[in-house]
């Protein structure tokens, strides 16, 4: 009898202790689904670990859901099933879709609601502006951002008797024409190649030269926007590239980056336009020649070239969780934006630091003396305050529109269409997509 009472008491006591300890110390779990794999994934894990160690109220759990497309699709499925994470990383072209989804908690509200007084002025404006709504309020937290730059083969330049390029002042497209002519004459198989042609040769070309990519401030001010890339200046640019193709000054190496990068590494092409985040890959792959980075070329008539626009992804806060959870989400986002984390992120991945203070602190530490490549992109992107046109692009079905542009450009490269025909058709086809997208969100 006594033994049994003892046992009963012990059981009750242990239950009490366990539940009590759970109530008292169980940290709130914050789920973050991201698209960062391999080396970048490890960098994310490290930052998460640092955050979890820095406090005891919240535990962030990061999960890689594959590449960008797969992560977005996982998010879509989860939101439909109401099993979504607190934070979802989505790439820049999906911004419009996420913004209109009705499933998000805008970041500027989240930070304000949870008592974080963020100094948005300290952020790099061209990065922020890509994720702001028309009123200038931040909708998602920028995470990994890059911008296109021009890589060139220093050895081949030397052989052809061409001086090295400036890291801050862009050369003109005419100058690049001269350079590539010299390169070809010196025996290099091809002049320039470009990765992500829609992003580098159309989207960023428009931003640098302050040309509208679409009406309604590139779609920021209304779903009823239309594409505007068939203007004489863009047509002229594509016509020039087509002309360069005839004498090998331009070589088409495919839509993505693998083909063009392979041409550059094999020294088949001496100039290579791609994202600044390609630095790490080139460092690893190139062993037998010296290369350097320069800003993207600018037209001679553009006296004050605008900023380039970003590529990459941002973190979206999703609605429908407990209020107390959001405090943790805000704390985590705030933590990621600290100079310490931003410096680490920038150094490890090559993506931009998103705050000016992180950039200044790196500068002070002499980081850019050691790594001069990295600064080319930052300087190019921040050389001017973004205008309504150069701040970003906000289009529905943007992924499909990029596909359309890629397709039509390929039809120029293989002689099926003239640049004017192709760009006219790209605009026509994209407008159909934009109207379809508009129809979804039209108020009934």
């Amino acid at each position: 009898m006594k033994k049994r009472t003892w046992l009963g008491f012990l059981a009750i006591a242990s239950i009490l202790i366990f539940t009590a300890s759970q109530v008292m110390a169980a940290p709130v779990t914050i789920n973050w689904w991201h698209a960062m794999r391999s080396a970048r994934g490890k960098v994310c894990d490290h930052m998460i670990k640092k955050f979890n160690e820095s406090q005891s109220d919240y535990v962030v759990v990061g999960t890689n859901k594959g590449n960008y497309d797969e992560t977005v699709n996982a998010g879509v499925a989860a939101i439909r099933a109401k099993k979504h994470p607190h934070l979802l990383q989505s790439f820049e072209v999906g911004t419009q879709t996420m913004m209109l989804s009705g499933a998000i908690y805008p970041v500027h509200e989240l930070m304000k609601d949870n008592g974080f007084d963020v100094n948005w002025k300290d952020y790099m404006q061209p990065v922020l502006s890509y994720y702001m709504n028309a009123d200038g309020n931040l909708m998602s937290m920028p995470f990994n951002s890059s911008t296109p730059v021009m890589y060139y083969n220093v050895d081949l330049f030397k052989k052809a008797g061409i001086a090295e390029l400036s890291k801050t002042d862009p050369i003109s497209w005419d100058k690049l024409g001269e350079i590539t002519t010299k390169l070809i004459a010196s025996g290099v198989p091809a002049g320039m190649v470009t990765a992500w042609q829609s992003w580098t040769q159309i989207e960023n070309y428009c931003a640098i030269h302050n040309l509208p990519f679409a009406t309604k401030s590139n779609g920021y001010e209304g779903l009823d926007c239309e594409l505007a890339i068939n203007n004489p200046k863009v047509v002229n640019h594509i016509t020039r590239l087509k002309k360069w193709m005839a004498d090998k000054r331009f070589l088409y190496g495919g839509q993505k980056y693998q083909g063009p990068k392979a041409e550059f590494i094999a020294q088949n092409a001496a100039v290579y336009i791609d994202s600044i985040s390609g630095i790490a890959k080139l460092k690893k792959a190139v062993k037998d020649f010296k290369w350097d980075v320069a800003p993207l070329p600018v037209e001679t008539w553009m006296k004050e070239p605008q900023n380039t626009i970003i590529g990459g992804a941002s973190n979206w806060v999703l609605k429908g969780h407990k209020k107390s959870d959001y405090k943790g989400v805000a704390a985590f986002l705030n933590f990621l934006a600290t100079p310490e984390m931003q410096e680490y992120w920038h150094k490890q991945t090559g993506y931009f630091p998103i705050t000016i203070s992180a950039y200044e602190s790196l500068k002070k530490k002499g980081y850019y003396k050691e790594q001069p490549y990295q600064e080319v992109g930052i300087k190019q992107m921040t050389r001017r305050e973004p205008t309504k046109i150069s701040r970003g692009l906000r289009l529905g079905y943007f992924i499909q529109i990029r596909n359309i542009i890629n397709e039509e450009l390929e039809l120029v490269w293989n002689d099926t269409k003239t640049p004017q025909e192709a760009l006219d058709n790209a605009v026509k086809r994209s407008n159909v997509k934009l109207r379809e997208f508009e129809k979804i969100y039209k108020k009934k």
Partner: protein
Amino acid sequence: MIKRSVFTNRKLPYLLILPQILVTATFFYWPAAQGLFQSLMISDPFGLYNTFVWFDNFIALFKDPLYLKSVAITLTFSACTAFVSISMGLFIATMANRALRFKALIRTMLIWPYAVAPAISGILWLFLLHPSYGVVSIAFKRWFGLEWNPVLVGRDAMIMVILASAWKQVSYNFVFFVAGMQAIPHSLIEAASMDGASPFRRFWAITVPLLSPTLFFVTVMNIIYAFFETFGVIHTVTQGGPGGATNVLVYKVYQDGFIGLNLGSSAAQSIVLMSLIILITVLQFKYVERKVQYTG
């Protein structure tokens, strides 16, 4: 007299097929119905804005010249892939069947490529035929001055994906043809050769008609393969490019639905694809099967 076994219990047969029906309904009819429903709507990816639009998605599809082009591309691609893989399979099977020594070894070796996933097959052919680093294409350029650039020229890209898709399927066809040929009575062929028929005549007048059930089956399977399973090849080799030259229907469904998140249109495309494959199969059964001779 055919013997029939009849269940005495009226409920038991239904109970016995219930698991199968449940599986089919859950994994086939339910998603298909959802797809059909989705194809009549336009909606955002998150399912919060849905508008019922009747057949607007279908009308938009058939108004889109690029969709019609994609249909044409798919038909060409499937016909070529099926033709190449069937004729190669048949040729190799005939040769292997005549081989006297190492018959078993040769057969085993020839079956191997079937174990290769389509995506891997695509990459292998890319390594052979890529204009910058493809061994074969560089050799051809050097020796014959052949201008070959599947990254830029649609026709070249098409040839490359057909080769990559057909190559893998050759083994599959080979297995069936070898099995089919072994079922042909040897006496028939011997009799024909005694009557003085040439090997080609013997093949054409005896082997092919007796092989026709296999040939028919293989044709249906190859067309279905070319329609659906070549996704991996297209995805790794061309991504539908250049300029949409290899954008077959199944890849377009993926691009518009999964990548582009245009669910309504993507669902409508799936329905069209499904109807198309049903139509092709029905036609094959109706017209081609008449000419098939089943032994018996």
